[in-house]
């Protein structure tokens, strides 16, 4: 589980960086695309655990633009909710789901060929279900088009999901947890910290041992740090121009990341203020 988490999240966090400097066009960054080489398509799809409130508050850069949560495009989402209402329509079944954070409509489209299957699928009112689906907007009304809806048989899944959604939010807004003490280092988040130790470390970024100082820096700066650990340059360090080139970021951003890393005590400046080297100790 830890491994697959690491893979999924660390790639997406790349997109996070792209989103920040490219003004919201997450896919504009070449990093995301280079993974699949297929440009924008299913290869760039993400599946993010969310609360329903996050779905309601997801914004769009312009009408019909992709939805964003925490500034990141979301394609597919998964969430849990209690079934509040079921209304069968001719072409779909519309559910109203409530997870305690908000209520949203979820539509499951009926497949004419498999009429029997879908009509048999029934959920009890007030029971919890998990939805995997895509955020949609129709006539200015937001709903989720469900690929799959399944009943939740173990209530712990509900709790776990909410914590996972929190974890993802923190991962994208504050970066991966540095070490053992998990998401955000919250003082009273004891329970969720222990839950995510494995995933958290893996998410930090591959084979580079996570340095304590990296805990506080942005995801982008952490990527720069990772790159620096493998970069040629020896004791002289690497100039911000080269970092910018390698990381496909602006020089200003490279400098910002460098300064962030330096003030976190994990790099230092060498021949001038714009040349950074890893601080080994």
């Amino acid at each position, binding site marked *: 589980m830890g491994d697959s988490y690491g893979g999924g999240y660390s790639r997406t966090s790349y997109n996070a960086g792209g989103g920040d400097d490219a003004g919201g066009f997450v896919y504009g960054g070449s990093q995301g695309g280079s993974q699949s080489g297929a440009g924008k398509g299913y290869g760039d799809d993400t599946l993010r655990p969310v*609360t329903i*409130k*996050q779905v*309601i508050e997801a*914004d*769009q850069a312009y009408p019909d633009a992709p939805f964003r949560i925490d500034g990141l495009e979301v394609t597919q989402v998964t969430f849990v909710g*209690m079934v509040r209402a079921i209304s069968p329509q001719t072409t779909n079944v519309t559910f109203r789901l*409530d997870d*305690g*954070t*908000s*209520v*949203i*409509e979820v539509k499951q489209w009926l497949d004419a060929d498999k009429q029997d299957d879908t009509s048999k699928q029934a959920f009890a009112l*007030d*029971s919890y279900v998990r939805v995997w689906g895509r955020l949609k*907007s129709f006539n*200015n*009304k*937001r709903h989720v088009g469900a690929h799959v809806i399944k009943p939740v048989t*173990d*209530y*712990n899944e509900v*709790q*776990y999901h*909410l*914590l996972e*959604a*929190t974890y993802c*939010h*923190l991962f994208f807004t504050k970066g991966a947890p540095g070490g053992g003490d998990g998401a*955000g280092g*919250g003082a*009273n*988040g*004891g*329970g*969720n910290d222990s*839950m995510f130790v494995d995933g958290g470390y893996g998410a930090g970024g591959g084979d580079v041992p996570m340095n304590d100082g990296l805990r506080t820096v942005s995801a982008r700066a952490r990527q720069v740090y990772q790159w620096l650990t493998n970069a040629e340059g020896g004791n002289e360090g690497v100039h911000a121009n080269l970092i910018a080139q390698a990381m496909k970021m602006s020089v200003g951003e490279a400098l910002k990341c460098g300064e962030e890393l330096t003030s976190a005590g994990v790099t230092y400046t060498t021949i001038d203020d714009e040349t950074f080297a890893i601080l080994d100790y």
Partner: protein
Amino acid sequence: MESISTPRISSQLIDSYVGQNVMVVGKVQQLRGDTAVIDAEGQITANLNRDAHLVNGNAAQIIGKVLPDLSIKVMSSVDLGNNVDFKVAQAVVDATHQYRDLFVFDASKGGMMMG
């Protein structure tokens, strides 16, 4: 969609939610007629509705309104069986209040514009 939340709380937080709808996950300690005592970091008295089917000793999720005497007038209750990790439930309560942005539409903000 309404911008209404029923925040997950424990008995430690109940006095800040008088008059509001909340959700509590806890262990049923006592069932007497229409009243249940639920332990969620402390005891909460729940005034059940007719169709409640809670089980003594099991976990339960109740949704209802916090009354001035800090009991809860239950609108919906679900028996959750005996396999609920209350430490995780408490972690969710903590996360709810530490990261309210993800979980709670504040009533004071009133009607949100929906996209």
